[in-house]
């Protein structure tokens, strides 16, 4: 059974329709890379998945359970509960400046009393080690580089043990020499237990890490398939010209 199933998602801002019926399906442990030109709706799609925007139409299912239906109203309580299926890593990191690395990671699990505090602390230590920041656990965000901050943000999202971890262009705000460390961490998370959706402009990374690629153009899934199908044998004309433009850049 698919871990994530999105059907016919529509989202408008005022009169502009940004998502025009998006369908997606993902199996547990898969990595999905979403590519597409600027303004196509990739961020909006991730935001709808995380309830930061509410789609007007369409459904979202996680592990076969309907967790969102655009036709029905949804309460804040349901949103809070359902969004725990997802984790989100933002382009701008959005770490909490007044908390240390470790406190950033433990804040939500402790407030939501996910586990006893001691357990949350030891899990946080493991996560911090996993993203290679053990020596920074007690530092504040301003003392870290952008790449380090983004790695903390990844650990923070992982600490809530989401079924699906979403990344919105995790390296776009970084200096080029810092993208590598973040991409390596994301790659290291790939496992049969971690399902990930990654919006990215890093084509090399998408090709290497993704099991599935979706090309979103103008609010629709214009092409979808394996990395080989998308990169080596693109059928769609728009995809071809997008890839050509990416190669040039």
């Amino acid at each position, binding site marked *: 059974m698919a871990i994530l199933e999105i059907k016919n998602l529509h989202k408008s801002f005022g009169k502009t329709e940004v998502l025009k019926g998006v369908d997606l399906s993902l199996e547990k442990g898969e990595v999905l890379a979403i590519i597409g030109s600027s303004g196509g709706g990739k961020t909006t799609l991730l935001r709808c998945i995380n309830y930061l925007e509410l789609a007007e139409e369409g459904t979202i299912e996680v592990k076969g359970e309907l967790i969102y239906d655009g036709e029905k109203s949804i309460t*804040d309580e349901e949103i*809070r509960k359902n969004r725990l299926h997802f984790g*989100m890593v933002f382009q701008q990191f*959005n*770490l*909490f*400046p007044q908390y240390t690395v470790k406190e950033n990671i433990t*804040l939500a699990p402790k407030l939501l009393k996910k586990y006893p505090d001691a357990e949350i602390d030891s899990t946080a230590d493991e996560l911090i080690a996993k993203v290679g920041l053990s020596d920074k656990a007690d530092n504040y965000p*301003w003392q870290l580089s952008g790449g380090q901050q983004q790695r903390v943000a990844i650990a923070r999202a992982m600490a809530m043990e989401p079924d699906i971890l979403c990344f919105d262009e995790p390296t776009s705000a970084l200096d080029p020499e810092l993208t590598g460390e973040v991409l390596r961490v994301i790659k290291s998370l790939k496992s049969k237990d971690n399902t990930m959706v990654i919006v990215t402009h890093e084509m090399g990374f998408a090709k290497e890490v993704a099991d599935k690629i979706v090309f979103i153009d103008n609010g629709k899934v214009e092409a979808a398939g394996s990395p080989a199908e998308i990169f080596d044998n693109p059928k769609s004309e728009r995809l071809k010209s997008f890839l050509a433009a990416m190669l040039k850049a």
Partner: protein
Amino acid sequence: MFQQVMMELTTGSVKTLEIFFLTLIGSLPLGLLISFGTMSRFLPLKGLMKTIVWIVRGTPLMLQLIIIYYGPGLILGANIWGMGSEGRFIAVLVAFIINYACYFSEIYRGGIESIPQGQYEAGEVLGLSKRQVFFKIVLLQVVKRILPPMSNEFINLVKDTSLARIIAVYELIWAGQVFIKSDGLIWPLFMTGAYYLIFSGLLTIAFAKLEKKLSYFK
């Protein structure tokens, strides 16, 4: 003579201190509520709150004091503040609390609106409630940002306490001025000046300490 002056000044300064602290106790939280009102998505509430803030900030505190003290008596025909100095003191507090709450509300609003949307969203996607996001994530960042303008307002309040005499609340300057008329003495007034200076100096130091305390994050 000196002893008599000191006694009078002490009485006056205690009133001044009372006005200062009781005004803060009332207006700091009330200001937060008002700032929520001015940021409300419920437009009638927002409009009402913004109008109140506009009126209160746009007219002199002295005028507000007079209207709040005499207004109910003249309009309703009943002195709701009670008789004597006790009643006048309550009216002073009500006027000061409303006035300062409106000033604080604008400072809070500026602080709250300066926090990037990403902070709220990061908290919410972790499953926190709006309350938790506000109190555990946003509030301290707001406090840090509003310390400098709050420090200004606190010092203004120290000096504004002297307006209480308008409705005959015996505060510090009045206590000092008495001796001009009765004994031709000016130095008691200089002492009141020194008192304000020391008071606002202490506040400045306290705020500098707080700012330093919150300088561990950016």
